[in-house]
């Protein structure tokens, strides 16, 4: 038995510890190289900026990780992000108090989550098709509302307090970031300590055995999709508030970023195993790589190419690590 595998047998979760160590290393490497290549990198404003962007990915990722662990995924998150943002702007503009609009926007996200969950868990439609469908529906709706409003984005005529949530600060830290991290921490708790998480792992690992063990598979999947939708609604609302506008064209690559972050973090697309912490690190890596490329004036569109390669690389890397350990 090779020495790595022998060591692996000593600790459970070793394959993930190993992956986590690799990820931390990669993240550190990315940050060091970026700092060396440009002095704009290691500034407080810049790092804060990245964290704010990455926060959205991590927010949806908090629930999407468990969803993927259960063997499913949600392609509609990007468009739901856009739609809820647009709706938040639209509702605020048309007489609904901003606070109420915030809550309603989150609920709209929940609604999409419920629809996705119902399609996949009860109508037994494969997640690819189901969430592809809701994705296009959400995209369409986002543009429709913007059009009804009369422009490309819902920008003008927004109440003064629209941007409060997205832009107020506590010292030099944005308020929403604190709230987002609290939410992420809560979902880490869900991931680490609840029965729901156990069921997700079971379902993803062996759906049949889960059914035979009496797990309420459909309800679990519905709930997971609901969480993803709700968190995405929150993210969309926050983003709109931050930008000061409801834009239907955000989030085009969002679902991709979320999937890359999750897969990079060690979650298998087939389900049954995964890592919340890995997702956080994965999101950070994707965020900082993108940021570095930006600062270096690299074509924005190179990033998309790079992301595609990262995804493929992540899948192969995860498999390689498993083969070495196992």
């Amino acid at each position, binding site marked *: 038995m090779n020495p790595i595998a022998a060591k692996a047998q000593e600790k459970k979760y070793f394959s993930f510890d190993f992956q986590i160590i690799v990820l931390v290393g990669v993240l550190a490497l990315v940050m060091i190289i970026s700092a060396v290549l440009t002095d704009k990198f290691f500034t407080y404003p810049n790092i804060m900026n990245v964290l704010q962007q990455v926060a959205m990915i991590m927010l949806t990722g908090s629930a999407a990780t468990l969803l993927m662990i259960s063997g499913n995924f949600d392609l509609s998150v990007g468009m739901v992000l856009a739609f809820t943002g647009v709706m938040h702007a639209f509702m605020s503009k048309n007489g609904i108090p901003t606070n109420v609009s915030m809550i309603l926007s989150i609920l709209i996200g929940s609604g999409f989550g419920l629809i996705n969950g119902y399609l996949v868990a009860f109508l037994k439609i494969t997640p690819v*098709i189901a969430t592809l469908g809701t994705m*296009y529906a959400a995209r369409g709706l986002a543009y429709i509302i913007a*059009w009804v409003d009369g422009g490309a984005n819902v920008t003008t005529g927004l109440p003064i307090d629209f941007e409060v949530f997205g832009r107020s600060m506590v010292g030099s830290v944005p308020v929403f970031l604190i709230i987002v991290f609290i939410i992420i921490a809560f979902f880490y708790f869900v991931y680490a300590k609840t029965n729901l998480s156990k069921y997700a792992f079971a379902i993803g690992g062996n759906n049949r055995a889960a059914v035979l063990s009496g797990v309420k598979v459909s309800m679990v999947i519905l709930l997971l999709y609901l969480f993803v939708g709700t968190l995405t609604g929150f993210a969309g609302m926050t983003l709109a508030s931050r930008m000061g506008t409801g834009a239907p064209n955000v989030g085009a690559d969002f679902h991709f970023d979320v999937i890359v972050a999750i897969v990079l973090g060690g979650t298998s697309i087939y389900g049954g195993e995964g890592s919340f912490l890995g997702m956080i690190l994965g999101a950070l890596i994707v965020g900082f790589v993108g940021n570095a490329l930006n600062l270096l004036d690299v074509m924005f569109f190179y990033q998309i190419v790079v992301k595609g390669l990262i995804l493929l690389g992540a899948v192969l890397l995860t498999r390689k690590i498993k083969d070495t350990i196992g």
Partner: protein
Amino acid sequence: MNKTAKGSYAGIDLQKLVILGILVFVALVFFSLNNRFLSQANILFILRQSSFVIMTGCAVTLLMISGNLDLSVGSTVALTGVVHAFLCQSGMATGLSFILATGVGVLVGLVNALTVVKLKITPFIATLGTMYVGRGLAYLITDGLIIRDGLPDNFTFVGREYFGPIPIPIIVLIIVILVFLVLEKKSILGKYSIAIGGNSTAATLSGINSGSVVMTLYIIAGAMAGLSGVMMASRLGVGDPNLGIGFEFDVIIAIILGGTSLAGGEGSILGMIIGGLIIGSLGNGLKLLNVFTFFQAVMKGIVLVLAVVLDQKLKSGISIRNKKRIKN
């Protein structure tokens, strides 16, 4: 044991009758709302619009019959169109550029083929990756802009001219359809696609090299997407990296409407054509009624879900997920 409740009535497929009925229904509804819908000019327009989905759909139908899928066709359409425009703008002869750009589609197909068959990455992830890389490359080549200027006059020849009374793109469409119908029914590729999708163990035991077949299918899909992209660019007269968003979606709906099972093993190019026409008609009809483009997106989302549910119901309610896969 697979059961298909798909009935045959006097040899004609029930599913095809149903969707033909839907097509006629849709046509009649739109006609009653706006007479222009069935005018010759409009019908021609619908055909032109649907031609890209149908051409690509011909190849992707065979691919899905074999049990695989390709999400990258939309970005390939954009990429090859952009390449074609770029090359022409740089002075290359239009004809040569046409061929090379289509070749780029073949390359994308090759990448998909290798990633799925040799690297054994699941088609969903593999083609999702190529989709992003392809789209990124398209933006890269054009710097994010649309290539409009500096294109030779004959750039739009293929896309806009006529051969006699018939538009050239329609002729190309018909040729492609005929070729693929023959491939579907009479070629080894067509038959082996069904075998691999229907019972991969039996296929392997009969000596079929599944890997080669699947790779060929991906390459052909890339080629057809490439051809569609080049023709689209020729028609529009620009190289636009934003084209084709949602294209893969339209193709998949057309294919599913046409009766292809997501699990593989059965499907029909003829059905896909009718499905493609339905999608084209829907889009066109809604436009004629001044319904904003993005309503279509919502509509399409609903149509897709309904199509899949219909697909599953027609297959006698045995859930696709529960079908036993025969393992080696």
